[in-house]
């Protein structure tokens, strides 16, 4: 397979895509022209406005089909490919026992005003997700789940009190980039509160994160849509044996 690809409608290389959006313009030919202009700027050529509908007197909704001229170069695709092996719970427990010689302490929460606990519970609770047990099931982990709507200062305090090795924060609400703001705030707070060598691992998750943004947001790892507990547990086991290898043994005890 070639590394240079294009979208596929019904023929290799046809480049066909579907697009929809609303413009703040009254319905009519001018609005369709505006829609075509936008499609053109997005690289769709030729573009067909196949549907347009007034949304009240001031807006128009469009459906556009067309051929996008851009090429996708697979060699340049940035993927945070899993850089650690997937382990069974047994293996994870063994790693923790060997490296830490005590339980790994995980503190989890939905931070800010977010009250969507189903996602973090899926990772933490014994019940788990997608047929996999959650972290509470791991004999060598101690899980403290703070639940919903935890303010960042409270989280920092609790992490300190529990001597957390890893802090797991969930963010589901994304309107006005709330998730990004909250994660940045959290990362800053932990950096301020802990010396670099004793800062717990910062792990965030939620369905709308771009997993490649970890560095940008100042956290160690991001998990997106459909994450399973095994992935998180394996990552933690991996992280404490590498980066965390430098932390003085027993630091968190």
């Amino acid at each position, binding site marked *: 397979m070639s590394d240079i690809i294009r979208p596929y409608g019904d023929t290799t290389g046809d480049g066909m895509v579907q697009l929809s959006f609303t413009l703040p313009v009254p319905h009519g030919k001018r609005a369709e022209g505006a829609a075509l202009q936008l499609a053109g700027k997005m690289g769709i050529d030729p573009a067909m406005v196949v549907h347009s509908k007034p949304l009240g007197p001031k807006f128009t909704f469009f459906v556009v089909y067309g051929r996008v001229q851009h090429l996708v170069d697979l060699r340049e695709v940035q993927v945070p490919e899993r850089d650690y092996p997937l382990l069974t719970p047994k293996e994870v427990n063994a790693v923790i026992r060997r490296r830490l010689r005590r339980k790994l302490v995980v503190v989890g929460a939905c931070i800010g005003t977010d009250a969507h606990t189903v996602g973090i519970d899926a990772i933490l609770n014994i019940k788990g997700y997608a047929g996999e047990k959650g972290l509470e099931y791991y004999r060598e982990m101690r899980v403290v789940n703070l639940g919903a709507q935890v303010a960042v200062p409270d989280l920092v305090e609790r992490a300190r009190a529990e001597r957390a090795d890893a802090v797991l924060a969930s963010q589901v609400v994304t309107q006005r980039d*709330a998730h990004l703001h909250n994660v940045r705030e959290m990362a800053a707070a932990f950096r301020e509160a802990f010396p670099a060598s004793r800062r717990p691992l910062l792990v965030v998750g939620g369905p709308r994160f771009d997993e490649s943004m970890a560095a940008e947001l100042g956290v160690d790892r991001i998990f997106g849509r459909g994450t399973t507990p095994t992935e998180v547990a394996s990552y933690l086991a991996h992280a404490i044996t590498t980066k965390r290898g430098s932390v003085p043994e027993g630091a968190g005890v």
Partner: protein
Amino acid sequence: MTGGLTLDPALVRRARQLADQAARPVIELARRHTTVSIERAVLRLAGVTGADPDGIPWVNRLVDAVRADVGLEHGVALPVFAALRAEGINDLTLLAQKAAAGSIHFQIPQGRSASVARRAAHRAVAAGLRRIDRRRAERERLIQRLGDPPRRPWIYLIVATGDIYEDIEQAQAAAREGADIIAVIRSTGQSLLDYVPEGATREGYAGTYATQENFRLMRAALDRVSRELGRYVRLTNYASGLCMPEMATLAGLERVDMMLNDSMYGILFRDINPIRTFTDQRFSRQIHARAGIIINTGEDNYLTTADAVEAAHTVTVSQLLNEVFAQEAGLADWQIGLGHAFEIDPELPDSFRLELAHALLARTLFPRYPLKWMPPTRHMTGDIFRGYLLNGFFNLAGLLTGQSILLVGMMTEAVITPWLSDRDLALQNVRYVLNACGGLAEDFAPRPDGFIQRRANQVLAEAVALLERICDHGLLQAIAEGTFGIMKRPPDGGRGLDGVAVQADDYYNPATEILEQELAAEREERHE
């Protein structure tokens, strides 16, 4: 019209009797307590408005000051009106400002000064209730003049931009496209605030702050569009969270038409203390009853954390409990909008028929209530096409089972708070289904002893069994054990417990007094 579901009448009677038995102790509990928000609501009725420069409402400052001096257990009405008289002013807000400045010392008046304060408080609160009455009359006039939606179900749409002015644009657009009810979703943070923000707001997250001014602005905008369309478009907001009683009061004062108001939602989904919640909800429902506001309960939420098939009977149990609480608080049948939802995993074989069974069960158990039917959310994904289809079948289930209020599902449910276009597409979906299927319920006749009948009766039987367990150990215990929505909430946990007080013997609350007296009189009359 939706004929055909036959429930065992003995089982239905037993269910209601058990629900009553389970709810009574909690009602007693609510009668014996008061909360900071109830007291603030009383003061709002009495006329306190506005907020300090930090945005903390004067009612909060006033109640806090009273509490610091004399505690909450006597109610704030007497100490406040006694202080008013002592200060020789007649502006409660001014009093609040002085109290905030620390220049007032509150006391529980005794003897004659107590009865003077009592009369003054009673008069002020009664005036507040009369303002609510006028709003109710106004609503009734407008409905008379402009008319109700031409058909059931009423179409209920959400706006949630975070900015009241964008909300207004979108609400009016939605009404023009056919919405009968507009709900302004609240910002994620609000339910945990122990005060009601002030003024017009533009910076909510995933929702817009509920404030008196926002209520007023939106109601005025909907009045304009109602006149334009020749049909009264209703407004919905939330009486839940830590400020339930005040929200109900402000809604009554600004002619909000419906309020989300559940007896357990705050406990389960906002981790608010159970006693706080049960106490607050009782007062808020008394206000709703008076204001002619329709309440919507929140059973749909359980199915976002618990499985919609396994936990179907918990919805029924909760509906039965909400019914008891609502009736006790004085809500009329037409005001009791019990909730339920289309949340069964669509991959499950016969999922749609199971939905029909559950929806028919609710309809048959509560034939006279304006049931609110909630769309799929949990099993919605980023596949917006599939989502659009699911919403179509949700609409169809609503039509076939005679639901009263249809909350319109959005294809982008799993992605974003709804866009302008999502709402338009969603309404188009509803219109197609209602129009194309029209009287299809005529041809829908669940076969006696068929799948649907069997399933509905099974859920009812499970509900009765659960109610029996609840009666044995108490509702608070059941909640602590994670019975509803798999959320475990002990009676002494959760937020806001510090805002609760056991009423002292001399507790006085003019609002409760008036509301309960008039309700009792009304009930007497009805029984004569």
